[in-house]
């Protein structure tokens, strides 16, 4: 996420990372880990596990937060969440695609079909349910969705 932080800045999305470590550990981690040389994200210290529990990502067995990612809109509503078990890292490109799609929907009210990226066809605003039901394929071809 940090490596793509310029992209989130460009999109106007704040980033906050959280683990159950203390703020002192966070500081030491950033100072010592070569991979974090240019790390710029605020790191919350959830050493009492309250936030992890509230978000449903606290693992009682291991005493840690599992890998959860949440997208929240300006009204404070959670729009998307992805939760992975610890051994597998996340894919930031897919997340950026989702952020761009949610922002497009918020701006236009249009609906983004599978695989949507900026520039691709959306489904129209105020869709006439009668006309579209069972006929989405007449409006957008499978090839367009998969491209």
């Amino acid at each position, binding site marked *: 996420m940090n490596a793509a932080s310029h992209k989130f800045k460009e999109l106007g999305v704040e980033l906050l990372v959280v683990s159950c470590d203390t703020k002192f550990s966070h500081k030491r*981690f950033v100072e010592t*880990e070569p991979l974090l040389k240019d790390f710029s994200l*605020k*790191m919350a210290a959830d050493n009492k596990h309250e936030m992890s529990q509230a978000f449903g990502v606290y693992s009682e067995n291991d005493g840690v937060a599992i890998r959860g990612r949440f997208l929240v809109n*300006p009204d404070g509503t*959670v729009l998307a969440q992805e939760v992975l078990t610890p*051994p597998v890292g996340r894919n930031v490109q897919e997340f950026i695609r989702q952020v761009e799609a949610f922002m497009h929907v918020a701006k236009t009210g249009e609906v983004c079909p599978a695989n949507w990226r900026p520039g691709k066809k959306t489904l129209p605003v105020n869709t006439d349910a009668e006309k579209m039901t069972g006929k989405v394929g007449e409006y957008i071809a499978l090839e367009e969705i998969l491209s």
Partner: protein
Amino acid sequence: MCSSLVTRQMPEFKLDAYDPVSGKYITVCSDDYKGKWLTVCFYPGDFTFV
């Protein structure tokens, strides 16, 4: 009730934090992000990077 947070209001929080840009200890809370798009990422722990 659905256990996913999706479509629900983000839980409130207020925590100590470290800001690597200023090098300072700060406090972060949910109110800081009112009116803004926000991504919250949890990870298992410092020094266990994936």
